[in-house]
Protein backbone atom coordinates (compact mmCIF):
# COMPACT_ATOMS: atom_id res chain seq x y z
CA UNK A 1 0.00 0.00 0.00
CA UNK A 2 1.26 3.44 -0.85
CA UNK A 3 1.38 6.01 1.91
CA UNK A 4 1.69 9.73 1.67
CA UNK A 5 4.80 10.04 3.77
CA UNK A 6 6.73 7.70 1.48
CA UNK A 7 8.83 9.72 -0.91
CA UNK A 8 8.10 8.64 -4.46
CA UNK A 9 10.15 9.29 -7.52
CA UNK A 10 8.59 11.01 -10.53
CA UNK A 11 8.11 7.72 -12.38
CA UNK A 12 6.62 5.99 -9.37
CA UNK A 13 4.16 8.79 -8.81
CA UNK A 14 3.18 8.64 -12.44
CA UNK A 15 2.55 4.89 -12.44
CA UNK A 16 0.67 5.18 -9.14
CA UNK A 17 -1.61 7.77 -10.72
CA UNK A 18 -2.04 5.70 -13.89
CA UNK A 19 -3.03 2.67 -11.87
CA UNK A 20 -5.69 4.70 -10.13
CA UNK A 21 -7.02 5.88 -13.49
CA UNK A 22 -7.08 2.29 -14.77
CA UNK A 23 -9.22 1.33 -11.81
CA UNK A 24 -11.74 4.09 -12.45
CA UNK A 25 -11.97 3.66 -16.23
CA UNK A 26 -14.11 0.47 -16.22
CA UNK A 27 -16.71 2.19 -14.08
CA UNK A 28 -16.74 5.19 -16.40
CA UNK A 29 -17.19 2.99 -19.45
CA UNK A 30 -20.11 1.07 -17.96
CA UNK A 31 -21.76 4.30 -16.87
CA UNK A 32 -21.23 5.68 -20.38
CA UNK A 33 -22.83 2.59 -21.89
CA UNK A 34 -25.91 2.98 -19.70
CA UNK A 35 -26.05 6.71 -20.47
CA UNK A 36 -25.88 5.89 -24.16
CA UNK A 37 -28.83 3.55 -23.70
CA UNK A 38 -30.81 6.35 -22.03
CA UNK A 39 -29.93 8.80 -24.79
CA UNK A 40 -30.80 6.32 -27.53
CA UNK A 41 -34.15 5.68 -25.85
CA UNK A 42 -34.80 9.36 -25.21
CA UNK A 43 -34.24 10.46 -28.80
CA UNK A 44 -37.30 11.71 -30.61
CA UNK A 45 -39.53 9.21 -32.38
CA UNK A 46 -37.33 6.28 -31.45
CA UNK A 47 -39.14 3.18 -30.28
CA UNK A 48 -36.04 1.89 -28.58
CA UNK A 49 -37.05 1.05 -25.00
CA UNK A 50 -35.34 2.76 -22.09
CA UNK A 51 -33.97 0.86 -19.07
CA UNK A 52 -37.00 1.80 -16.94
CA UNK A 53 -39.34 0.42 -19.59
CA UNK A 54 -37.38 -2.82 -19.65
CA UNK A 55 -37.56 -3.07 -15.89
CA UNK A 56 -41.31 -2.37 -15.90
CA UNK A 57 -41.72 -5.01 -18.61
CA UNK A 58 -39.94 -7.44 -16.31
CA UNK A 59 -42.44 -6.73 -13.53
CA UNK A 60 -45.47 -7.04 -15.83
CA UNK A 61 -44.09 -10.27 -17.17
CA UNK A 62 -43.91 -11.62 -13.64
CA UNK A 63 -47.52 -10.62 -13.06
CA UNK A 64 -48.91 -11.51 -16.47
CA UNK A 65 -47.05 -14.56 -17.70
CA UNK A 66 -46.81 -15.35 -21.42
CA UNK A 67 -48.14 -18.81 -22.25
CA UNK A 68 -48.50 -19.53 -18.55
CA UNK A 69 -44.80 -19.07 -17.78
CA UNK A 70 -43.12 -16.09 -16.23
CA UNK A 71 -39.62 -14.96 -17.15
CA UNK A 72 -37.73 -17.29 -14.83
CA UNK A 73 -39.77 -20.27 -15.93
CA UNK A 74 -39.02 -19.50 -19.57
CA UNK A 75 -35.32 -19.28 -18.79
CA UNK A 76 -35.55 -22.50 -16.82
CA UNK A 77 -37.23 -24.31 -19.71
CA UNK A 78 -34.41 -23.26 -22.03
CA UNK A 79 -31.81 -24.27 -19.48
CA UNK A 80 -33.33 -27.72 -19.02
CA UNK A 81 -33.12 -28.31 -22.77
CA UNK A 82 -29.50 -27.18 -22.74
CA UNK A 83 -28.56 -29.38 -19.79
CA UNK A 84 -30.14 -32.55 -21.15
CA UNK A 85 -28.51 -32.04 -24.53
CA UNK A 86 -25.16 -31.14 -23.00
CA UNK A 87 -24.95 -34.19 -20.78
CA UNK A 88 -25.88 -36.57 -23.60
CA UNK A 89 -23.47 -34.86 -26.00
CA UNK A 90 -20.62 -34.96 -23.49
CA UNK A 91 -21.07 -38.67 -22.88
CA UNK A 92 -21.39 -39.59 -26.54
CA UNK A 93 -18.92 -36.98 -27.77
CA UNK A 94 -16.11 -37.93 -25.42
CA UNK A 95 -16.59 -41.63 -26.09
CA UNK A 96 -16.66 -41.12 -29.84
CA UNK A 97 -13.73 -38.71 -29.72
CA UNK A 98 -11.64 -41.21 -27.79
CA UNK A 99 -12.55 -43.93 -30.26
CA UNK A 100 -11.53 -41.98 -33.35
CA UNK A 101 -8.56 -40.37 -31.63
CA UNK A 102 -7.12 -43.64 -30.41
CA UNK A 103 -7.93 -46.11 -33.16
CA UNK A 104 -6.60 -45.17 -36.58
CA UNK A 105 -8.90 -47.49 -38.45
CA UNK A 106 -11.97 -46.19 -36.68
CA UNK A 107 -10.76 -42.69 -37.46
CA UNK A 108 -10.44 -43.52 -41.16
CA UNK A 109 -13.87 -45.12 -41.18
CA UNK A 110 -15.84 -42.43 -39.35
CA UNK A 111 -14.03 -39.15 -39.68
CA UNK A 112 -14.87 -38.32 -43.34
CA UNK A 113 -18.60 -38.67 -42.63
CA UNK A 114 -18.18 -36.85 -39.33
CA UNK A 115 -16.29 -33.99 -40.99
CA UNK A 116 -19.10 -33.67 -43.51
CA UNK A 117 -21.64 -33.36 -40.70
CA UNK A 118 -19.42 -31.02 -38.74
CA UNK A 119 -19.03 -28.55 -41.56
CA UNK A 120 -22.78 -27.98 -41.60
CA UNK A 121 -23.62 -25.22 -39.11
CA UNK A 122 -26.10 -26.37 -36.43
CA UNK A 123 -28.55 -23.66 -37.39
CA UNK A 124 -28.85 -25.11 -40.89
CA UNK A 125 -30.41 -28.25 -39.39
CA UNK A 126 -33.26 -26.29 -37.84
CA UNK A 127 -35.65 -26.39 -40.84
CA UNK A 128 -34.99 -30.08 -41.47
CA UNK A 129 -35.52 -30.99 -37.82
CA UNK A 130 -38.75 -29.04 -37.54
CA UNK A 131 -39.94 -30.75 -40.69
CA UNK A 132 -39.06 -34.24 -39.45
CA UNK A 133 -40.00 -34.01 -35.80
CA UNK A 134 -42.32 -31.02 -35.53
CA UNK A 135 -41.84 -28.34 -32.90
CA UNK A 136 -41.89 -30.39 -29.73
CA UNK A 137 -39.19 -30.92 -27.14
CA UNK A 138 -37.29 -33.65 -28.97
CA UNK A 139 -36.18 -31.74 -32.09
CA UNK A 140 -34.94 -28.84 -29.97
CA UNK A 141 -32.90 -31.06 -27.70
CA UNK A 142 -31.60 -32.92 -30.73
CA UNK A 143 -30.48 -29.66 -32.35
CA UNK A 144 -28.71 -28.49 -29.23
CA UNK A 145 -27.16 -31.92 -28.94
CA UNK A 146 -25.80 -31.71 -32.48
CA UNK A 147 -24.44 -28.22 -31.92
CA UNK A 148 -22.75 -29.26 -28.69
CA UNK A 149 -21.46 -32.61 -29.93
CA UNK A 150 -19.10 -31.30 -32.61
CA UNK A 151 -16.68 -29.28 -30.45
CA UNK A 152 -16.50 -32.06 -27.86
CA UNK A 153 -15.63 -34.71 -30.44
CA UNK A 154 -13.11 -32.53 -32.27
CA UNK A 155 -11.28 -31.49 -29.12
CA UNK A 156 -11.28 -34.95 -27.58
CA UNK A 157 -10.02 -36.47 -30.78
CA UNK A 158 -7.18 -34.00 -31.19
CA UNK A 159 -6.30 -34.28 -27.51
CA UNK A 160 -6.08 -38.06 -27.61
CA UNK A 161 -4.29 -38.15 -30.96
CA UNK A 162 -1.68 -35.60 -29.83
CA UNK A 163 -0.65 -37.11 -26.51
CA UNK A 164 3.09 -36.51 -26.14
CA UNK A 165 4.75 -39.56 -27.66
CA UNK A 166 7.21 -39.73 -24.79
CA UNK A 167 4.47 -40.47 -22.25
CA UNK A 168 3.25 -43.37 -24.33
CA UNK A 169 6.79 -44.64 -24.85
CA UNK A 170 7.41 -44.58 -21.12
CA UNK A 171 4.22 -46.60 -20.68
CA UNK A 172 5.36 -49.10 -23.29
CA UNK A 173 8.73 -49.47 -21.57
CA UNK A 174 6.95 -50.30 -18.32
CA UNK A 175 5.03 -52.98 -20.18
CA UNK A 176 1.66 -51.30 -20.16
CA UNK A 177 -0.98 -52.90 -22.34
CA UNK A 178 -3.19 -50.93 -24.72
CA UNK A 179 -5.94 -50.46 -22.19
CA UNK A 180 -3.57 -49.06 -19.58
CA UNK A 181 -1.93 -46.77 -22.12
CA UNK A 182 -5.33 -45.34 -22.96
CA UNK A 183 -6.88 -45.07 -19.51
CA UNK A 184 -3.86 -44.21 -17.42
CA UNK A 185 -1.87 -42.06 -19.83
CA UNK A 186 -3.77 -40.80 -22.86
CA UNK A 187 -7.04 -39.77 -21.24
CA UNK A 188 -5.59 -37.93 -18.22
CA UNK A 189 -3.07 -36.09 -20.35
CA UNK A 190 -5.74 -34.91 -22.79
CA UNK A 191 -8.20 -33.78 -20.12
CA UNK A 192 -7.43 -30.11 -20.77
CA UNK A 193 -8.23 -30.50 -24.46
CA UNK A 194 -11.46 -32.32 -23.58
CA UNK A 195 -12.41 -29.51 -21.25
CA UNK A 196 -11.72 -26.90 -23.91
CA UNK A 197 -14.29 -28.79 -25.97
CA UNK A 198 -16.76 -28.82 -23.09
CA UNK A 199 -16.40 -25.07 -22.68
CA UNK A 200 -17.02 -24.43 -26.36
CA UNK A 201 -19.93 -26.83 -26.40
CA UNK A 202 -21.64 -25.03 -23.53
CA UNK A 203 -21.64 -21.66 -25.25
CA UNK A 204 -22.60 -23.28 -28.56
CA UNK A 205 -25.50 -25.05 -26.87
CA UNK A 206 -26.82 -21.82 -25.41
CA UNK A 207 -26.73 -20.22 -28.83
CA UNK A 208 -28.40 -23.11 -30.63
CA UNK A 209 -31.22 -23.41 -28.10
CA UNK A 210 -32.08 -19.77 -28.77
CA UNK A 211 -32.14 -20.29 -32.50
CA UNK A 212 -34.17 -23.47 -32.17
CA UNK A 213 -36.74 -21.72 -30.00
CA UNK A 214 -36.84 -18.71 -32.28
CA UNK A 215 -37.63 -20.84 -35.32
CA UNK A 216 -40.57 -22.60 -33.79
CA UNK A 217 -41.42 -23.03 -30.15
CA UNK A 218 -44.00 -22.11 -27.58
CA UNK A 219 -41.76 -21.65 -24.59
CA UNK A 220 -38.26 -20.67 -23.67
CA UNK A 221 -36.28 -17.50 -23.79
CA UNK A 222 -35.82 -17.60 -27.56
CA UNK A 223 -39.57 -17.74 -27.93
CA UNK A 224 -39.86 -14.59 -25.81
CA UNK A 225 -37.59 -12.71 -28.20
CA UNK A 226 -39.63 -13.72 -31.23
CA UNK A 227 -42.83 -12.91 -29.39
CA UNK A 228 -41.51 -9.42 -28.63
CA UNK A 229 -40.36 -8.95 -32.20
CA UNK A 230 -43.65 -10.02 -33.76
CA UNK A 231 -45.78 -7.89 -31.47
CA UNK A 232 -43.53 -4.83 -31.61
CA UNK A 233 -42.86 -5.21 -27.89
CA UNK A 234 -39.21 -4.23 -27.99
CA UNK A 235 -38.95 -3.90 -24.22
CA UNK A 236 -39.58 -7.65 -24.07
CA UNK A 237 -36.86 -8.26 -26.68
CA UNK A 238 -34.34 -6.22 -24.75
CA UNK A 239 -35.31 -7.85 -21.48
CA UNK A 240 -34.73 -11.28 -23.00
CA UNK A 241 -31.42 -10.14 -24.47
CA UNK A 242 -30.24 -8.99 -21.06
CA UNK A 243 -31.26 -12.31 -19.53
CA UNK A 244 -29.58 -14.25 -22.34
CA UNK A 245 -26.38 -12.34 -21.75
CA UNK A 246 -26.47 -12.93 -18.01
CA UNK A 247 -27.27 -16.63 -18.31
CA UNK A 248 -24.59 -17.06 -20.99
CA UNK A 249 -22.00 -15.45 -18.74
CA UNK A 250 -23.11 -17.59 -15.78
CA UNK A 251 -22.83 -20.77 -17.87
CA UNK A 252 -19.28 -19.80 -18.85
CA UNK A 253 -18.35 -19.23 -15.21
CA UNK A 254 -19.92 -22.54 -14.21
CA UNK A 255 -17.91 -24.54 -16.75
CA UNK A 256 -14.77 -22.79 -15.55
CA UNK A 257 -15.46 -23.93 -11.99
CA UNK A 258 -16.28 -27.42 -13.18
CA UNK A 259 -12.94 -27.48 -14.95
CA UNK A 260 -11.18 -26.32 -11.80
CA UNK A 261 -12.85 -29.15 -9.90
CA UNK A 262 -12.09 -31.91 -12.36
CA UNK A 263 -8.65 -30.98 -13.58
CA UNK A 264 -7.12 -28.19 -11.49
CA UNK A 265 -3.72 -28.51 -13.14
CA UNK A 266 -4.97 -27.16 -16.48
CA UNK A 267 -5.65 -23.68 -15.15
CA UNK A 268 -2.45 -21.75 -15.33
CA UNK A 269 -3.42 -18.55 -13.60
Amino acid sequence: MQKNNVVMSEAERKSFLLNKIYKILPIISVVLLILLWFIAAGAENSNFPSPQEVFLRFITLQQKPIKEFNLFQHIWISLIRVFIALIVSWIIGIAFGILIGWNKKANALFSPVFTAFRSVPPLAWVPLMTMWFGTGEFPKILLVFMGALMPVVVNTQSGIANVAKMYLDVGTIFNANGKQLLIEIAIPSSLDAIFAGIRTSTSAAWMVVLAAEMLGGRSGIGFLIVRGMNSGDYALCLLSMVCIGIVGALLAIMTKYLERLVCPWTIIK
Partner: protein
Amino acid sequence: MSNSYKNEKMTDTERISFVKNTKRKDDYLIIMISIIGVLGFLIIWQLAVVFGLLPSRYVPMPTEVIKLFAVKLVDPNPEGAVLGVHILASLQIVLTGFLLAIVVGVPLGLVMGWYKGFDSFMRPIFEILRPIPPVAWIPLTILWIGIGLKAKAFIVFFSAFVPCVINAYAGIKQTNPVLINVAKTCGASNFTTFYKIGIPSALTMTFAGVKVALGNAWATLVAAEMLASSAGLGFMILQGRQFARADIIILGIVVIGVIGIIFASILGYVENRMLGWKK
Protein backbone atom coordinates in the same frame (compact mmCIF):
# COMPACT_ATOMS: atom_id res chain seq x y z
CA MET B 1 3.62 -51.16 -33.51
CA SER B 2 1.50 -54.00 -34.79
CA ASN B 3 3.90 -54.74 -37.63
CA SER B 4 5.31 -58.22 -37.28
CA TYR B 5 9.02 -57.90 -37.84
CA LYS B 6 10.79 -60.85 -39.36
CA ASN B 7 13.24 -62.52 -37.11
CA GLU B 8 15.86 -63.27 -39.72
CA LYS B 9 18.54 -60.67 -40.20
CA MET B 10 18.02 -58.11 -42.94
CA THR B 11 20.46 -55.78 -44.60
CA ASP B 12 19.81 -52.06 -44.21
CA THR B 13 18.36 -51.64 -47.69
CA GLU B 14 16.03 -54.57 -47.16
CA ARG B 15 14.91 -53.16 -43.86
CA ILE B 16 14.26 -49.72 -45.39
CA SER B 17 12.22 -51.18 -48.20
CA PHE B 18 10.35 -53.43 -45.75
CA VAL B 19 9.40 -50.46 -43.56
CA LYS B 20 8.45 -48.39 -46.60
CA ASN B 21 6.30 -51.21 -47.92
CA THR B 22 4.40 -51.73 -44.68
CA LYS B 23 3.88 -47.97 -44.44
CA ARG B 24 2.54 -47.80 -47.97
CA LYS B 25 0.23 -50.72 -47.24
CA ASP B 26 -1.03 -49.00 -44.09
CA ASP B 27 -1.70 -45.75 -45.94
CA TYR B 28 -3.50 -47.65 -48.67
CA LEU B 29 -5.61 -49.47 -46.08
CA ILE B 30 -6.51 -46.20 -44.33
CA ILE B 31 -7.61 -44.58 -47.59
CA MET B 32 -9.66 -47.64 -48.53
CA ILE B 33 -11.39 -47.62 -45.13
CA SER B 34 -12.19 -43.91 -45.53
CA ILE B 35 -13.76 -44.50 -48.91
CA ILE B 36 -15.72 -47.46 -47.53
CA GLY B 37 -16.96 -45.23 -44.69
CA VAL B 38 -18.31 -42.53 -47.00
CA LEU B 39 -19.76 -44.94 -49.55
CA GLY B 40 -21.23 -47.11 -46.82
CA PHE B 41 -23.00 -44.13 -45.31
CA LEU B 42 -24.49 -43.09 -48.65
CA ILE B 43 -25.48 -46.64 -49.58
CA ILE B 44 -27.15 -47.29 -46.22
CA TRP B 45 -29.03 -44.01 -46.59
CA GLN B 46 -30.13 -44.88 -50.12
CA LEU B 47 -31.15 -48.44 -49.26
CA ALA B 48 -33.01 -47.35 -46.15
CA VAL B 49 -35.18 -45.10 -48.30
CA VAL B 50 -35.56 -47.60 -51.13
CA PHE B 51 -36.76 -50.33 -48.77
CA GLY B 52 -39.07 -47.94 -46.97
CA LEU B 53 -37.31 -47.90 -43.61
CA LEU B 54 -37.35 -44.12 -43.83
CA PRO B 55 -40.34 -42.30 -45.33
CA SER B 56 -39.27 -41.03 -48.76
CA ARG B 57 -41.48 -37.99 -48.32
CA TYR B 58 -39.24 -36.74 -45.53
CA VAL B 59 -35.92 -38.29 -46.44
CA PRO B 60 -34.91 -37.93 -50.08
CA MET B 61 -32.43 -40.38 -51.54
CA PRO B 62 -28.85 -39.19 -52.21
CA THR B 63 -29.43 -39.73 -55.90
CA GLU B 64 -32.45 -37.45 -55.79
CA VAL B 65 -30.40 -34.74 -54.10
CA ILE B 66 -27.77 -34.99 -56.82
CA LYS B 67 -30.49 -34.82 -59.47
CA LEU B 68 -31.99 -31.79 -57.76
CA PHE B 69 -28.57 -30.15 -57.71
CA ALA B 70 -28.39 -30.39 -61.48
CA VAL B 71 -31.95 -29.10 -61.82
CA LYS B 72 -31.45 -26.21 -59.41
CA LEU B 73 -28.50 -24.94 -61.44
CA VAL B 74 -30.93 -23.69 -64.08
CA ASP B 75 -34.43 -23.90 -62.61
CA PRO B 76 -35.53 -21.12 -60.20
CA ASN B 77 -38.64 -23.04 -59.03
CA PRO B 78 -40.10 -23.36 -56.49
CA GLU B 79 -38.50 -20.72 -54.31
CA GLY B 80 -37.57 -18.22 -56.99
CA ALA B 81 -33.85 -18.28 -57.69
CA VAL B 82 -31.28 -20.61 -59.18
CA LEU B 83 -28.54 -22.09 -57.01
CA GLY B 84 -25.86 -19.70 -58.27
CA VAL B 85 -27.92 -16.68 -57.24
CA HIS B 86 -28.46 -18.17 -53.77
CA ILE B 87 -24.76 -18.80 -53.34
CA LEU B 88 -23.79 -15.31 -54.50
CA ALA B 89 -26.34 -13.66 -52.22
CA SER B 90 -25.08 -15.62 -49.24
CA LEU B 91 -21.44 -14.94 -50.04
CA GLN B 92 -22.16 -11.24 -50.26
CA ILE B 93 -23.74 -11.16 -46.81
CA VAL B 94 -21.17 -13.35 -45.12
CA LEU B 95 -18.11 -11.71 -46.64
CA THR B 96 -19.37 -8.21 -45.87
CA GLY B 97 -19.94 -9.08 -42.24
CA PHE B 98 -16.73 -11.06 -41.99
CA LEU B 99 -14.48 -8.39 -43.52
CA LEU B 100 -16.08 -5.74 -41.36
CA ALA B 101 -15.43 -7.88 -38.31
CA ILE B 102 -11.75 -8.22 -39.23
CA VAL B 103 -11.36 -4.51 -39.93
CA VAL B 104 -12.97 -3.54 -36.64
CA GLY B 105 -12.21 -6.50 -34.40
CA VAL B 106 -8.53 -7.21 -35.00
CA PRO B 107 -7.26 -3.64 -34.43
CA LEU B 108 -9.56 -3.32 -31.43
CA GLY B 109 -8.16 -6.49 -29.89
CA LEU B 110 -4.57 -5.48 -30.63
CA VAL B 111 -4.95 -2.01 -29.13
CA MET B 112 -6.83 -3.40 -26.14
CA GLY B 113 -4.09 -5.92 -25.51
CA TRP B 114 -1.33 -3.33 -25.71
CA TYR B 115 -2.63 -0.14 -24.11
CA LYS B 116 -3.79 -0.74 -20.55
CA GLY B 117 -5.91 2.39 -20.28
CA PHE B 118 -7.89 1.53 -23.39
CA ASP B 119 -8.20 -2.05 -22.15
CA SER B 120 -9.70 -1.08 -18.83
CA PHE B 121 -12.12 1.23 -20.65
CA MET B 122 -13.27 -1.16 -23.39
CA ARG B 123 -13.09 -4.46 -21.56
CA PRO B 124 -16.31 -4.07 -19.49
CA ILE B 125 -18.32 -3.03 -22.55
CA PHE B 126 -16.95 -5.93 -24.51
CA GLU B 127 -17.60 -8.39 -21.69
CA ILE B 128 -21.18 -7.19 -21.37
CA LEU B 129 -21.92 -7.55 -25.08
CA ARG B 130 -19.95 -10.74 -25.69
CA PRO B 131 -22.21 -13.41 -24.15
CA ILE B 132 -25.22 -12.33 -26.23
CA PRO B 133 -25.37 -14.69 -29.21
CA PRO B 134 -25.77 -13.17 -32.68
CA VAL B 135 -29.27 -14.61 -33.13
CA ALA B 136 -30.44 -12.58 -30.16
CA TRP B 137 -29.50 -9.38 -31.96
CA ILE B 138 -32.05 -9.96 -34.70
CA PRO B 139 -34.93 -7.91 -33.20
CA LEU B 140 -32.72 -4.95 -32.38
CA THR B 141 -31.13 -5.11 -35.79
CA ILE B 142 -34.52 -4.90 -37.42
CA LEU B 143 -35.35 -1.93 -35.24
CA TRP B 144 -32.12 -0.11 -36.01
CA ILE B 145 -31.14 -0.98 -39.55
CA GLY B 146 -34.18 -2.66 -41.06
CA ILE B 147 -33.94 -5.89 -43.02
CA GLY B 148 -31.60 -5.15 -45.92
CA LEU B 149 -28.11 -6.40 -46.67
CA LYS B 150 -26.71 -4.13 -43.97
CA ALA B 151 -28.88 -5.72 -41.29
CA LYS B 152 -27.90 -9.24 -42.30
CA ALA B 153 -24.24 -8.33 -42.50
CA PHE B 154 -24.53 -6.84 -39.02
CA ILE B 155 -25.70 -10.13 -37.53
CA VAL B 156 -22.90 -11.99 -39.28
CA PHE B 157 -20.52 -9.27 -38.11
CA PHE B 158 -21.45 -9.92 -34.53
CA SER B 159 -20.65 -13.60 -34.69
CA ALA B 160 -17.30 -13.01 -36.38
CA PHE B 161 -16.30 -10.01 -34.31
CA VAL B 162 -15.86 -11.72 -30.94
CA PRO B 163 -13.22 -14.32 -31.89
CA CYS B 164 -11.25 -11.67 -33.80
CA VAL B 165 -11.05 -9.46 -30.71
CA ILE B 166 -10.33 -12.26 -28.24
CA ASN B 167 -7.55 -13.83 -30.26
CA ALA B 168 -5.85 -10.57 -31.20
CA TYR B 169 -6.02 -9.60 -27.54
CA ALA B 170 -4.62 -12.89 -26.26
CA GLY B 171 -1.98 -12.96 -29.00
CA ILE B 172 -0.55 -9.56 -28.22
CA LYS B 173 -0.65 -10.26 -24.50
CA GLN B 174 1.62 -13.24 -25.09
CA THR B 175 4.35 -11.17 -26.74
CA ASN B 176 7.70 -12.31 -25.43
CA PRO B 177 8.75 -9.70 -22.82
CA VAL B 178 12.40 -10.17 -23.80
CA LEU B 179 11.64 -8.77 -27.25
CA ILE B 180 9.80 -5.82 -25.76
CA ASN B 181 12.69 -5.09 -23.42
CA VAL B 182 15.19 -5.24 -26.28
CA ALA B 183 13.14 -2.69 -28.17
CA LYS B 184 12.91 -0.47 -25.11
CA THR B 185 16.64 -0.71 -24.51
CA CYS B 186 17.26 0.33 -28.07
CA GLY B 187 15.16 3.39 -27.44
CA ALA B 188 11.97 2.50 -29.31
CA SER B 189 8.87 4.42 -28.33
CA ASN B 190 5.85 2.56 -27.02
CA PHE B 191 4.07 2.87 -30.36
CA THR B 192 7.06 1.60 -32.33
CA THR B 193 7.31 -1.40 -30.02
CA PHE B 194 3.60 -2.05 -30.50
CA TYR B 195 3.87 -1.74 -34.25
CA LYS B 196 7.15 -3.56 -34.86
CA ILE B 197 7.07 -6.24 -32.15
CA GLY B 198 3.60 -6.60 -30.67
CA ILE B 199 1.66 -6.92 -33.92
CA PRO B 200 3.96 -9.38 -35.74
CA SER B 201 4.17 -11.66 -32.73
CA ALA B 202 0.39 -11.60 -32.29
CA LEU B 203 -0.23 -12.62 -35.90
CA THR B 204 -0.41 -16.39 -35.37
CA MET B 205 -3.05 -16.14 -32.68
CA THR B 206 -4.90 -13.49 -34.64
CA PHE B 207 -5.02 -15.71 -37.67
CA ALA B 208 -6.43 -18.57 -35.63
CA GLY B 209 -9.11 -16.11 -34.51
CA VAL B 210 -9.84 -15.09 -38.09
CA LYS B 211 -10.33 -18.74 -39.01
CA VAL B 212 -12.81 -19.23 -36.18
CA ALA B 213 -14.48 -15.99 -37.21
CA LEU B 214 -15.03 -17.17 -40.75
CA GLY B 215 -16.51 -20.42 -39.49
CA ASN B 216 -18.82 -18.52 -37.16
CA ALA B 217 -19.79 -16.06 -39.88
CA TRP B 218 -20.76 -18.86 -42.21
CA ALA B 219 -22.62 -20.66 -39.42
CA THR B 220 -24.73 -17.59 -38.67
CA LEU B 221 -25.84 -17.34 -42.27
CA VAL B 222 -29.10 -19.18 -41.75
CA ALA B 223 -29.95 -16.96 -38.79
CA ALA B 224 -29.19 -13.82 -40.77
CA GLU B 225 -31.34 -14.92 -43.67
CA MET B 226 -34.29 -15.47 -41.36
CA LEU B 227 -34.73 -11.74 -41.95
CA ALA B 228 -36.78 -11.10 -45.04
CA SER B 229 -34.80 -11.98 -48.13
CA SER B 230 -35.43 -13.18 -51.63
CA ALA B 231 -32.29 -15.24 -52.18
CA GLY B 232 -29.54 -16.95 -50.26
CA LEU B 233 -28.77 -20.47 -49.11
CA GLY B 234 -30.36 -19.94 -45.71
CA PHE B 235 -33.42 -18.54 -47.43
CA MET B 236 -33.50 -21.58 -49.70
CA ILE B 237 -33.48 -23.92 -46.70
CA LEU B 238 -36.22 -22.00 -44.92
CA GLN B 239 -38.31 -21.97 -48.09
CA GLY B 240 -37.74 -25.69 -48.48
CA ARG B 241 -39.32 -26.02 -45.04
CA GLN B 242 -42.27 -23.87 -46.17
CA PHE B 243 -42.85 -26.06 -49.20
CA ALA B 244 -42.14 -29.22 -47.19
CA ARG B 245 -39.47 -30.19 -49.70
CA ALA B 246 -36.84 -32.11 -47.77
CA ASP B 247 -34.68 -32.48 -50.88
CA ILE B 248 -34.28 -28.70 -51.16
CA ILE B 249 -33.33 -28.46 -47.49
CA ILE B 250 -30.76 -31.22 -47.77
CA LEU B 251 -29.30 -29.76 -50.95
CA GLY B 252 -28.97 -26.42 -49.15
CA ILE B 253 -27.30 -28.08 -46.17
CA VAL B 254 -24.85 -29.90 -48.41
CA VAL B 255 -23.96 -26.74 -50.35
CA ILE B 256 -23.47 -24.78 -47.12
CA GLY B 257 -21.22 -27.52 -45.78
CA VAL B 258 -19.14 -27.74 -48.95
CA ILE B 259 -18.64 -23.97 -49.15
CA GLY B 260 -17.66 -23.97 -45.47
CA ILE B 261 -14.97 -26.56 -46.20
CA ILE B 262 -13.74 -24.53 -49.19
CA PHE B 263 -13.50 -21.43 -47.02
CA ALA B 264 -11.52 -23.26 -44.35
CA SER B 265 -9.04 -24.64 -46.86
CA ILE B 266 -8.56 -21.23 -48.54
CA LEU B 267 -7.78 -19.65 -45.18
CA GLY B 268 -5.41 -22.48 -44.30
CA TYR B 269 -3.55 -21.81 -47.55
CA VAL B 270 -3.42 -18.06 -46.91
CA GLU B 271 -2.15 -18.71 -43.40
CA ASN B 272 0.66 -20.86 -44.72
CA ARG B 273 1.65 -18.18 -47.21
CA MET B 274 1.47 -15.32 -44.73
CA LEU B 275 2.87 -16.95 -41.64
CA GLY B 276 5.32 -19.36 -43.24
CA TRP B 277 8.18 -17.39 -41.69
CA LYS B 278 6.96 -18.27 -38.23
CA LYS B 279 7.59 -21.97 -38.62
